[in-house]
């Protein structure tokens, strides 16, 4: 069966995979972006609230000695302000008095300019250990002294918290994405399984291992499979009917043609009409050739349209060889032993016609013997060789052999159509015919896809 390939618009599986991948990436990416933004904003807000609390606590604990030197009633409740260079610092300064600093601030100091009003203000500026979020407020004592209260936390503390969260979130979301993708692919595979089964059923049909699409399918594609099977059955019936009708047409033409041929022969026997008779004979012969050739072509093309066709060798050869032994008596038709039957994906009627033509030719020319062998010559190819021990053919004869009406010896019965028809059938069923001549005779090889 000849196969026509419809241009593909891509793989359905790939489409689903791409769609799922894009969906998961966009979804998880969106979640990641939103979550990190919300968290960063939230944690920043918490930091600021905490620093406000701390600065208020610091203000509440700050006292001035009689000389105006600041001191605290007690340490701040957060112990990180006492740990050296912990990133959490505070300072209290009164103009003209020593600045009071947290135990953590073993070096440097904070810019008190942020503490410029009774309301809490904040800035980001360089602190003892890098950029710091600095909060401050200005308290004015009853005697008019201005107390600058400043608290700072390294910005890296906030950034580290955000980075740690982002890292954990990314790892978690990546795992979720992988899980979602794997689940998505599994769903695609599960969902497409009926289509895979349908593909395999079509392959079996094409390979000639089935006559229809086999199996049960989901309700979405079952009607399609049903329609295809109905189409295949209808097609096979049409092909069978067209073969019969073509045969009937040929039959209805051949009998009147036989009468015309006879009349022409009679005319040829009369001297006065011999020329007319010969013209009629020639034309009748031309018509006979055309009927035979076109009928064979029609039949072979029709046969090639039937999907699921297959022929089994040597079963197909056995009746043909028996017929050849009867037709060419005195000549030995020998089939080489085969280990196991071989199947080929072609219409058996077409293959039988093709092999019969080659075997009949071999029988006509063989001196004593025609040898037939069937071998698997490749994983997907079976070759049938037909060897005769006749005179063989020259290269020129081999080149001319497929031409319609070519006969090399008119003493041997035949129409001169055999090889031309055989070549046509071979083309239709996707087989290759090669003729090779040697001193031992002619070998015709037919290679067919398995």
């Amino acid at each position: 069966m000849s196969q026509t390939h419809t241009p593909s618009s891509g793989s359905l599986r790939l489409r689903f995979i791409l769609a799922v991948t894009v969906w998961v990436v966009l979804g998880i990416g969106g979640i990641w972006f939103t979550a990190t933004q919300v968290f960063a904003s939230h944690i920043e807000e918490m930091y600021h609230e905490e620093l406000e609390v701390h600065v208020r606590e610091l203000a509440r604990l700050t006292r001035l000695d009689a000389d105006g030197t600041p001191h605290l009633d007690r340490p701040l409740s957060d112990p990180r302000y006492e740990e050296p260079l912990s990133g959490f610092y505070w300072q209290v300064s009164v103009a003209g008095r020593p600045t009071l600093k947290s135990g953590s601030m073993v070096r440097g100091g904070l810019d008190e300019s942020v503490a410029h009003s009774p309301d809490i203000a904040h800035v980001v500026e360089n602190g003892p250990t890098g950029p710091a979020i600095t909060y401050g407020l200005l308290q004015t004592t009853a005697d008019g002294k201005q107390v600058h209260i400043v608290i700072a936390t390294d910005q890296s503390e906030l950034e580290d918290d955000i980075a740690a969260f982002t890292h954990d979130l990314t790892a978690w979301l990546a795992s979720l994405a992988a899980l979602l993708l794997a689940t998505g692919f599994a769903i695609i595979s599960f969902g497409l399984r009926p289509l895979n089964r349908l593909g395999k059923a079509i392959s079996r049909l094409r390979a000639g291992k089935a006559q229809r699409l086999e199996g049960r399918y989901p309700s979405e594609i079952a009607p399609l499979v049903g329609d295809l099977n109905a189409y295949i059955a209808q097609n096979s019936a049409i092909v069978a009917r067209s073969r019969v009708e073509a045969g009937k047409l040929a039959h209805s033409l051949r009998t009147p043609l036989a009468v015309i041929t006879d009349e022409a022969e009679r005319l040829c026997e009369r001297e006065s009409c011999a020329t007319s008779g010969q013209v009629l004979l020639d034309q009748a012969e031309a018509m006979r050739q055309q009927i035979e050739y076109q009928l064979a072509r029609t039949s072979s093309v029709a046969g090639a349209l039937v999907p699921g066709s297959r022929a089994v060798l040597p079963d197909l050869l056995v009746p043909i060889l028996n017929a050849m032994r009867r037709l060419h008596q005195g000549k030995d038709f020998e089939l080489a032993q085969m280990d196991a039957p071989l199947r080929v994906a072609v219409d058996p009627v077409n293959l039988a016609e093709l092999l019969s033509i080659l075997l009949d030719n071999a029988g006509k020319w063989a001196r004593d013997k025609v040898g037939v062998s069937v071998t698997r010559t490749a994983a997907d190819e079976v070759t049938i060789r037909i060897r005769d021990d006749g005179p063989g053919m020259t290269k020129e004869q081999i080149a001319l052999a497929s031409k319609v009406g070519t006969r090399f010896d008119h003493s041997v019965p035949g129409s001169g159509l055999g090889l031309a028809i055989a070549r046509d059938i071979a083309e239709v069923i996707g087989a290759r015919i090669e003729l090779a001549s040697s001193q031992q005779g002619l070998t015709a090889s037919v290679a067919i896809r398995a």
Partner: protein
Amino acid sequence: MRILLVEDDPALGQRLGDRLRAADYAVDLATNRAEGEDWPDLDAMAAIILDLGLPDGDGLDLLRYWRSRGVECPILILTARGSWQDKVAGLNAGADDFVVKPVRFEELQARLQALFRRQMGRRDNILKAGSLALDPVGRMVTDKGEPVSLSRREFALLHLFMRRAGQVLSQADILEDLYDLDTERELNTIEVLIGRLRRKIGKDRITTLRGMGYRFEA
């Protein structure tokens, strides 16, 4: 030589019959399967020419029926079915050759001769008996290399004798082989014919066996 022609087309049957008769065959014509099944004494036929497309059944079934009844004479299928599928089926059903219509009479005759040769185990057409040689295709008879002039009936009679040299042939056997069923037959015609043939090929070649018939001496 007697031939049964089974052909349903009246025009073709008539024409083929005429041709075969002109070539000195005695021809009986059956036009359907039922006639073919009931035809008597088929083994007296030198050959049967069978069309497959018969009005009351398939010629292949008729062929199988004959073979199942032990009919052994050569059968040549002459049909309008031209596929090898049909040819293989016909040959495997017991036909000896298969010819697709239309066929030149020359080729049909050659095929018939090939069947006769095959049946008699000969490789060429020429029948020989001592110095006598008969070529059924060239329609020539020679004795010691010299042509012998024979009429159509004399030729047919000699052909029968030489095919069955050494066998005793009754007058009925000879009538059966030489004349169609439709032809009016008289036994003394055979005596006259044998007398004429003896004069042309030599008396001693045909022996009369009283009450039994004649024997051609090989």
